[in-house]
């Protein structure tokens, strides 16, 4: 077959298409040979001539040469690809490290901010000394390898651009071209959900050409891989495309950094504190950024000098895959993992809770876990920033507990749930209902999958003793006892059964440990003091009573105010051990000294109160856990704030569309939760008195909807109790 083609040797040298051409020429040239070679190889149909053979050999040699050069080209290309992939791998590793640093810096900044806030607001040092130094060391400890770092510490975007330029310069010096940055940026973009995969793929395919600076002549090599044909078109615009990509990604990255800066700036703006604080924050912010940049520079060099990249790179790739998966799996996971995680960091500051959440500690220890979990959060942060700017300000400011979502529905009561109380440590709560019972719930014991929604909880124990609706509830600080008051005028003391009790265990009469006798009418409010081990109750018989439940004669003293009518709600003043605040049906609030029984301060509601007493009645009064601040929930839709020392109204706001029935302050004193007969609960930022979130939680029965709300003392749970016989827990 090939022999005839030897005559066409000169045409052969160029390209493979010409080979096909030769095949067609073959038969005509073969005709000449027949006459020449007859004598030598007569028996053969095809005669060979010496020139023909020589031609053939020459041609074959030329062909082999050509093929060899083609293979060479292929090899070069594959090598280029290997180099590229290695570069990509390193780029991804850098990216990973970068993001991890960013997360840590964010975390650190938030902690700093919280600490500072606390210190300035309450003048008390929090237990964070043990947390801070190691964190700080971790970030500033490694020496910055980059000179002139100081020039980049300004907050503006320009410096970021410069920083990027510098980094790119470094990369180029070490031998990586823009493509690596491109790859990195692409990854950032895809992580931030800004990039579509197709685009990224295309870019990856094109990239090798740029990396190795291959000439267009290599196109021949490309032809052997049919799928690559579109690549022909790209080389000319490739550089500009890359440039555009860089700009894009820069913009994207910048946006996310903008967001960071903005969030910090927002903190500044929102703060009513003195300039000192602002300055301090600015400094801190700069610190953060510097450290971040240092970290970046450091890990760039690290990434380049590491030898055993292979293993790590594999790891990184896996992680990134994992990341994109978690991203895809939707907001649910984020929202679930998020609050707990954030609160984990927040809880590190709580006095008395030495117990950090698992995620929090994992964050500190394990890099790998760190980046996967942390990045999920980061992604969400950015998404939120895009979605709702208004929310974001408060969301970032609160530094944890972004949005609450209903998770558990507690259905088992037959009538409205009047009160609920969380266990101080466990995910356990008790509800008190108008159906005369109290029920104990363990949120870890959800009903198995036989129900459609797996997050229904069934009660573990039903407390039966009251002979009328149960109206109020208080849990001791140890979580071992609780007290309930009802329309029957009784206050019962209960010993909490074990949280893992069999719901259908035999009846233990010892669960009721006693009753506090004294009130002659419905008991509407209870409040417990953790240190004093005392209980306050208020009743429509007109009295507020102080009890020491454990002593033989539990009633300590009784307080009343003839002119103000029946007390509606009562609470201990938390920052002043010997005082309590009681709200009366006259819409007045009075601070009493518990020892002397004297009225210390009357909280002034204003002149117009007397005009419409019923319309402004106080449904609930709570004392701030750390400040001399009393917060009242009114029938006239207002929440009012009073200064306990002066008795003056500090702030009043229309908080709901209908009467406000219940209040709860989170253990740190930063957030307020309110419930209303407008069917909704609202979360308020106590600092600037803005509503952070509103949740429609319950249905109406007659004109009542929500009776009580509560914060868990140590876990990220809030709960609401409704007239629709349900209680709901939000995470």
């Amino acid at each position, binding site marked *: 077959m090939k022999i005839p083609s030897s005559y066409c040797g000169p045409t052969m040298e160029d390209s493979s298409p010409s080979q096909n051409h030769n095949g067609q020429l073959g038969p005509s040239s073969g005709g000449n040979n027949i006459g020449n070679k007859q004598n030598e190889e007569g028996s053969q149909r095809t005669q060979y001539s010496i020139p023909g053979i020589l031609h053939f050999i020459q041609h074959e040699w030329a062909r082999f040469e050509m093929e060899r050069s083609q293979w060479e080209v292929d090899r070069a290309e594959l090598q280029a690809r290997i180099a590229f992939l290695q570069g990509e791998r390193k780029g991804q590793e850098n990216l990973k490290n970068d993001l991890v640093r960013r997360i840590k810096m964010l975390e650190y900044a938030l902690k700093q901010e919280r600490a500072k806030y606390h210190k300035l607001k309450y003048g008390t040092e929090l237990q964070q000394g043990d947390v801070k130094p190691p964190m700080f060391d971790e970030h500033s400890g490694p020496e910055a390898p980059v000179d002139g770092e100081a020039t980049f510490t300004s907050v503006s975007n320009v410096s970021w651009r410069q920083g990027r330029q510098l980094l790119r310069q470094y990369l180029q010096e070490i031998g990586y071209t823009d493509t690596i940055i491109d790859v990195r940026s692409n990854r950032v973009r895809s992580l931030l959900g800004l990039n579509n995969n197709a685009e990224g793929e295309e870019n990856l395919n094109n990239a090798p050409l740029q990396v190795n600076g291959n000439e267009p002549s290599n196109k021949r090599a490309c032809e052997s891989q049919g799928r690559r044909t579109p690549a022909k078109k790209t080389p000319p615009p490739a550089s500009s495309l890359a440039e555009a990509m860089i700009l894009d990604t820069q913009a994207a990255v910048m946006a996310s950094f903008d967001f960071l800066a903005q969030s910090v700036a927002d903190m500044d703006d929102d703060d009513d504190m003195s300039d000192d604080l602002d300055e301090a924050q600015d400094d801190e912010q700069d610190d953060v950024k510097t450290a971040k940049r240092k970290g970046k520079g450091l890990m760039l060099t690290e990434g380049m000098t590491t030898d055993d990249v292979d293993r790590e790179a594999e790891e990184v790739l896996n992680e990134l895959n994992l990341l994109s998966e978690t991203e895809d799996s939707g907001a649910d996971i984020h929202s679930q993992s998020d609050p707990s995680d954030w609160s984990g960091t927040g809880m590190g500051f709580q006095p008395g809770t030495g117990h950090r959440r698992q995620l929090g500690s994992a964050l500190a220890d394990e890099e790998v876990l760190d980046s996967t979990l942390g990045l999920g959060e980061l992604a969400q942060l950015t998404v939120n920033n895009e979605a709702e700017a208004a929310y974001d300000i408060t969301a970032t400011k609160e530094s944890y507990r972004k949005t609450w979502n209903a998770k558990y*529905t507690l*259905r*088992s*009561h*037959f*009538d409205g749930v009047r009160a609920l109380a969380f266990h101080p440590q466990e995910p356990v709560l008790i509800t008190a209902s108008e*159906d*005369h*019972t109290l029920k104990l719930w363990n949120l870890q014991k959800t009903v198995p999958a*036989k*129900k*459609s*929604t797996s997050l*229904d909880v*069934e*009660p573990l124990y*039903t407390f*039966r*003793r*009251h*002979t*009328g*609706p149960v*109206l109020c509830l208080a849990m001791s600080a140890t979580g071992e006892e609780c007290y309930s008051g009802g*329309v*029957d*005028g009784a206050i019962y003391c209960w010993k909490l059964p074990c949280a893992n009790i069999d*719901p*259908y265990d*035999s*009846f233990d*009469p010892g669960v009721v440990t006693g009753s506090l006798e004294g009130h002659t*009418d*419905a008991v*509407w*409010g209870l409040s417990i003091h953790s240190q004093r081990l005392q209980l306050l109750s208020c009743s*429509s018989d007109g009295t507020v009573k102080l009890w020491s439940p454990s002593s033989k004669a539990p009633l300590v003293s009784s307080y009343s105010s003839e002119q103000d*009518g*029946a*007390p*509606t*709600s009562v609470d201990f003043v938390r920052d002043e051990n010997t005082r309590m605040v009681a709200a*009366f*049906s006259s819409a007045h609030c009075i601070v009493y000294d518990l020892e002397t029984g004297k009225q210390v301060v009357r909280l002034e509601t204003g002149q117009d109160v007397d005009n419409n007493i019923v319309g402004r*009645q106080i*449904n*609930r009064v709570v004392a701030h856990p750390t400040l001399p601040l009393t917060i009242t929930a009114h*029938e006239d839709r207002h929440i009012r704030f009073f200064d306990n020392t002066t008795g003056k109204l500090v702030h009043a706001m229309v908080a709901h569309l209908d*009467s406000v029935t219940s209040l709860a302050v989170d253990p740190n004193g930063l957030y307020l939760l309110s419930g209303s*007969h407008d069917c909704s609960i609202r979360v308020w930022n106590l600092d600037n008195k803005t509503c952070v979130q509103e949740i429609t939680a319950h*249905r*109406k*029965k*007659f*004109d*009542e909807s929500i009776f009580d709300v509560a914060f868990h003392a140590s876990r990220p749970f809030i709960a609401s109790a409704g*007239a*629709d*016989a349900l209680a709901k827990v939000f995470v």
Partner: protein
Amino acid sequence: MKMADGSTILRRNRPGTKAKDFSRWPDEPFEEMDSTLAVQQYIQQQIRRDPANIDLILTPPDAQDEGVWKYEHLRQFCMELNGLAVRLQGECHPETCTQMTATEQWIFLCAAHKTPKECPAIDYTRHTLDGAACLLNSNKYFPSRVSIKESSVAKLGSVCRRVYRIFSHAYFHHRTIFDEFENETYLCRRFTAFVTKYNLMSKDNLIVPILEEEGSGETDA
């Protein structure tokens, strides 16, 4: 609500309300109840007005879905039975009433357990009420309180049968408690009338001779 002639009635038990005024507000016509809990509101309102007027209490409003009506009544019964359980807790001890019995004829096994077992009467009472509370609040069988599947309505009968045994145990073993409770609430009479009216239990099982006492003057069955 609020637009009506200036003086609006808000039916609320505000903190500080005296026990005697609890839920003592003017009746609201059923047609004006726009809540999803209207049936419960209506039933409770009728009971509050006169617990002895069983016929009125058991008369549904026009065009009321019968499944929901029966369901809400049964919820109310179980809720009020708490009152009887509380009283029994003081007198019915596991040592004295080791089994759930009424007459000597039957020993009732407690269905709250994986394998039904002979719980003492007080445990049986509590477990039955707890189990009824879980079933009647079950998101699976009763996801809505405005419409109920036919298959779920069928479950009401067995709940009725079980909770009725609490009445019968109290009647035959704790007669004082039963009478006190009954005079206050008319609950057993209402329950008997209810299950008879809606045919939720067979007559043979209604062993507490309470309607006969009133109706025809007969004493025992």
